């Protein structure tokens, strides 16, 4: 996460002490990504090394005052101009977990999905409540507006995850239905082969039974055929 650019952005409005930067960073992002003072100073040291900021005196307690340089301004403009790279995504624990749950012995992947969905939807409920409390923001309070944007990002992000989980479940239901149909067909073929014992191998693939009869259509059989939308 770019603390570096966050600090540069704050310094663009004027010189700041390290502790000030930390407070402002947090109030702008609603303390969603808390920073410790150590991180702030490490980042400032690197920025100084790279010529993006310089020190300009210190207060009585010996804390340095930092000022953005022209190179720092240029770097910041570039950051705002360029998209955040999504093509080399960070490792996602949930994706890894689901990938590992496929076919894992003793694990019902639908349970894994549901427990995550439970958690994710609950997080969304909580974010949504925070958002409902945050909607009386004054449009000219930068911190309030920024906090609302960050909250909504969290809501949309968890929403994407919840939708993806729905999709995974629907896909798995559909795949397992395909499996049961294949299985049924295989059994039928075996029975057929047993009936015609001695008739040798034919290895012929019969077309899948188009409408398995005598089976109640389970409601789940409609899953995965896309959402029904009201117009």
């Amino acid at each position, binding site marked *: 996460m770019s603390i570096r650019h966050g600090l540069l952005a704050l310094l663009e409005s004027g010189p700041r002490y390290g502790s000030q930067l930390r407070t402002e960073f*947090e109030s702008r992002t*609603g*303390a*969603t990504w*808390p920073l410790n003072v150590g991180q702030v100073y490490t980042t400032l040291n690197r920025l100084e090394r790279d010529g993006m900021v310089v020190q300009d005196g210190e207060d009585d307690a010996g804390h340095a005052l930092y000022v953005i340089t022209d190179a720092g301004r240029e770097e910041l403009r570039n950051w705002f101009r360029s998209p955040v790279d999504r093509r080399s995504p960070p490792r996602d624990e949930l994706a890894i977990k689901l990938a590992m749950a496929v076919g894992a012995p003793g694990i019902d992947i639908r349970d894994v999905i*549901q427990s995550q*969905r*439970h958690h*994710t*939807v*609950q*997080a*969304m*409920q*909580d*974010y*949504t*409540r*925070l958002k*409902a409390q*945050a909607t009386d923001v004054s449009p000219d309070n930068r911190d309030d507006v920024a*906090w609302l944007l960050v909250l909504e990002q969290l*809501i*949309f992000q*968890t*929403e994407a995850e*919840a*939708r993806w989980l*729905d999709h995974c*479940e*629907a896909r798995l*239901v559909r795949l397992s239905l395909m499996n049961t149909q294949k299985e049924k067909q295989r059994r039928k073929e075996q029975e057929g082969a047993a009936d015609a014992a001695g008739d040798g191998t034919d290895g012929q693939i019969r077309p899948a039974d188009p409408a398995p009869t*005598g089976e*109640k*259509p*389970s*409601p*789940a*059989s*409609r*899953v*995965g*055929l*896309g*959402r*029904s*939308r*009201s*117009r």
Partner: protein
Amino acid sequence: MPDQAPHPVLQLKDLTRVHGSGATEVHALRGINLDVFPGELVAVMGPSGSGKSTLLTIAGGLDTPTSGQVIVENTDLTTADRKQIAALRRRSIGYVFQDYNLIPALTAAENVALPRELDGTSARKARTEAVAALREMDLDSLADRFPDEMSGGQQQRVAIARALVGDRRLVLADEPTGALDSETGESVLALLRSRCDAGAAGVLVTHEPRFAAWADRVVFLRDGAVVDQTLRSQADSLLTGQAAER
């Protein structure tokens, strides 16, 4: 959330619903138990065909269960007579259908006023209330349009106004945000939420997690049964302490 153990507005007890019979039998609901309290908004989620609409139509007295009980404001719909059910539907229950169901021969305002007029409110008063309800949905300028003169999203909002007009104790909404863009959908949810905060009980069926997240409780249906439900956290701090204090 209920404070001092009030009585649920809606109670579903061991509800089952079987459609058809014999080989074509479908168990749309298999033993649902659900209480919805005054002030509570419950979202129902689940894959297509999991029984969400069936649950809602039964809760609204539009369909009868195969077994079990449906109690709305102390009236058991499974034993009440048709007149009692009709009165409850006019007076206490607001219903938004998945396909919004406006009456084509009536204008927006007339559609909204209809349940009130049927309930004996004078035509003038019903009209005034209807226009107020439309205003809440930013639709007062469309009061005299007919459904086929409005966009899908506008019709949807009229249907919502109709469900909320008067003093409904129970609001049942089946995908009310289906035809709406994200921002409008959100304003519909905010309105539903504020009705519930004012004391109504609400049940919202939706595929959209972002809208379900406005609820106090999210109930997950799968194959006609409740498989899980979430409450929102009791704790106020979710991000960090500081964030929640803001």
